[in-house]
């Protein structure tokens, strides 16, 4: 919000900018070079100053309808035309259509004798004439410092150059003045004293036999600008600056999920796999199966009919295909169907920026949904880790804004901490799978963890990672009192456990049988007791009946006796 306000304020408040059309430069300068003012572009020999100027004019003429004058003090128009033709600039066509004018100023020191006061009015007239003849808005002076070699009396030159830059400003020309880099100053003859609105430094350095070009906006009066050194490269499309940090975190995300190609891994990642458009880091020591994980992912993508690009920095395409066939993944078919594109290069072929550019080119032409970089760490042979990270960020930002899922593998040196070395990379990964060796009992087995996976519930367990001829299989490891067991240790532990289990089962069955027999015995006992009880009851019943009979007969007998004795009825008997 404040940035946007600042921008509009700047736009309204006077400092207008002219888009250069040079890829990335307009982003780091917040809109281009100061309009109607001279900009100094300095750098050593071969740093790309001339090309910078040419591209500024060509883009101006072709994209912004601003014709330009190129005043060359070093190369003739023919040489220049030939030199930049390889970069896709057709100066002849632009010259013919009056959108560009190349004026070669040639000064031969040996032809010139100074005999008194002079000024550079001739140059002014020449430049003025050139500007007027095509209605130029842009001017490049390359390299005006050669005047110092061609003309005597530097003090006159200095005064005249100061006048020239003022004159250019007055004419409203957006100008680029190139200057050779000096030992202790930006330019050999101190041009930065005269051109102070905007100074851009180009650098071309070689580290570990790999050259990298860098660009820095040293100063930009009245404007905010990126102050970092930005790598840039010169390829067939011209100059391209990589404003790594200027790409904001603005990409939108989707919650769509895509399969990893390994069912068990999908279930570890909340059952559905990776997020589309996320970045996946697969790290591990040598031979832990990183490429296999990547190949599964590619295979799954191609099965869904999505295009994939596989950047191989270690193995040739045919080697990857052969190796993956051994685990049952046929990548050849996808290449045949035009769904898979291999981009294999040795990292040392050229610098990091050139790699990034060629990767971007393949991505832009193939438009993949899935991108694999295997392994990204190999690129550190041409640049330091920070640069590789910066490049990856740039690549990932681009991928994310296109909703392309990127999987990159990194090789961890065995020995050191597996996680620490990857800190640099980990922050840019949304999902981080760690593959590692587990060494137990004289055996190396592979294990897989999910170290992190942003925005999804994921398993925190280690899985044993098996490479079978039907692909990658993930199985539970044995976690018990003796620690984590894998491989044959796990198998033997499992069989031991099975044995113990079997013994347990048997014991239980035996005891069950025992109880059953006991129960049966008891039941029999109960039955016999019951029978006994019934017999006793019968006996009792019989006895009771006999007693009643006996009493009845006794009574009868007594009655009979009484009748015989003629007894009266006693009170005692009436009670009965």
């Amino acid at each position, binding site marked *: 919000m404040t940035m946007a306000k600042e921008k509009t304020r700047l736009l309204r408040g006077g400092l207008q900018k002219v888009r250069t059309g040079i890829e990335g430069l307009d982003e780091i300068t917040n809109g281009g070079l100061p309009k109607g003012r001279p900009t100094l572009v300095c750098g050593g020999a071969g740093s790309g100053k001339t090309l910078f100027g040419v591209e500024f004019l060509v883009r101006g003429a072709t994209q912004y309808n601003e014709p330009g004058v190129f005043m060359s003090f070093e190369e003739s128009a023919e040489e220049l035309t030939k030199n930049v033709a390889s970069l896709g600039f057709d100066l002849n066509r632009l010259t013919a259509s009056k959108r560009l004018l190349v004026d070669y100023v*040639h000064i031969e020191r040996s*032809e010139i004798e100074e*005999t008194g*006061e*002079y*000024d550079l009015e*001739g140059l002014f*007239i020449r430049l003025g*004439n050139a500007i007027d003849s095509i209605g130029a808005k842009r001017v490049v002076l390359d390299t005006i410092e050669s005047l110092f070699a061609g003309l005597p009396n530097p003090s006159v030159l200095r005064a005249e150059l100061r006048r020239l830059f003022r004159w250019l400003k007055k004419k409203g020309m957006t100008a680029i003045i190139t200057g050779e880099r000096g030992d202790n100053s930006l330019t050999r003859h101190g041009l930065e004293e005269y051109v102070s609105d905007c100074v851009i430094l180009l650098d071309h350095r070689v580290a570990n036999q790999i050259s990298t070009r860098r660009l820095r906006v040293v100063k930009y009066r009245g404007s905010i600008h990126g102050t970092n050194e930005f790598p840039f490269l010169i390829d067939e499309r011209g100059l391209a600056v990589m404003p790594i940090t200027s790409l904001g975190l603005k990409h939108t995300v989707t919650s769509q999920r895509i399969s990893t190609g390994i069912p068990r891994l999908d279930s570890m990642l909340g059952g559905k796999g990776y997020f589309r458009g996320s970045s996946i880091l697969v790290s591990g020591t040598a031979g832990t199966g990183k490429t296999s994980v990547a190949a599964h992912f590619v295979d799954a993508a191609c099965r869904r009919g999505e295009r994939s690009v596989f950047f191989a920095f270690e193995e040739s395409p045919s080697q990857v295909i052969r190796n993956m066939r051994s685990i049952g993944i046929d990548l050849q078919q996808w290449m045949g169907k035009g769904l898979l594109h291999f981009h294999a290069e040795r990292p040392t072929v050229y610098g990091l920026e050139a790699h990034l550019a060629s990767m971007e080119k393949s991505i832009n032409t193939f438009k993949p949904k899935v991108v694999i970089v295997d392994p990204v760490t190999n690129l550190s042979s041409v640049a330091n880790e920070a640069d590789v990270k910066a490049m990856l960020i740039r690549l990932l930002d681009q991928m994310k804004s296109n909703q392309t899922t990127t999987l990159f593998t990194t090789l961890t040196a065995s020995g050191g901490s597996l996680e620490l070395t990857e800190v640099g990379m980990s922050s840019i990964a949304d999902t981080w799978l760690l593959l590692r060796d587990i060494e137990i009992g004289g055996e190396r087995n592979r294990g897989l963890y999910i170290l992190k996976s942003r925005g999804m519930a994921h398993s925190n367990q280690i899985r044993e990672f098996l490479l079978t001829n039907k692909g990658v299989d993930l199985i539970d490891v044995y976690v018990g009192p003796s620690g984590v067991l894998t491989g044959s240790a796990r198998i033997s532990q499992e069989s031991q456990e099975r044995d113990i289990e079997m013994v347990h089962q048997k014991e239980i069955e035996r005891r069950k049988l025992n109880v059953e027999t006991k129960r049966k015995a008891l039941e029999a006992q109960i039955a016999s007791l019951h029978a006994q009880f019934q017999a006793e009851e019968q006996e009792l019943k019989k006895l009771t009946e006999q007693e009643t009979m006996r009493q009845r007969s006794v009574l009868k007998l007594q009655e009979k006796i009484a009748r015989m004795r003629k007894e009266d009825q006693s009170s005692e008997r009436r009670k009965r």
Partner: protein
Amino acid sequence: MKTKAAAKPRRNSKHGKDIWELRLYVAGQTPKSILAFANLKKICEEHLKGKYHIEMVDLLQNPRLAKGDQIIAIPTLVRKLPPPLKKIIGDLSNKERVLVGLDLRPRI
């Protein structure tokens, strides 16, 4: 007057004799250009009497001509003939340097 220039006499095919063709580039009638022309005239009268030809080119009127002779500094005197081409910049007040520049006097 026979001067050092005779050291390397060259035939001018057009005129059949040694003619010095000089061109003075100026930009408007500035004091500097007037002074330069006066100085040139004087030197030529002294050293090349009767065999020189001065052409004044005002770049303000003919700006296109600046390209042809690669003129940057003003005033510039160009010795078109005899070859080789020589350029002398400045208002020509340093007479010795002018003579050296025109090969009328050897370099010391």
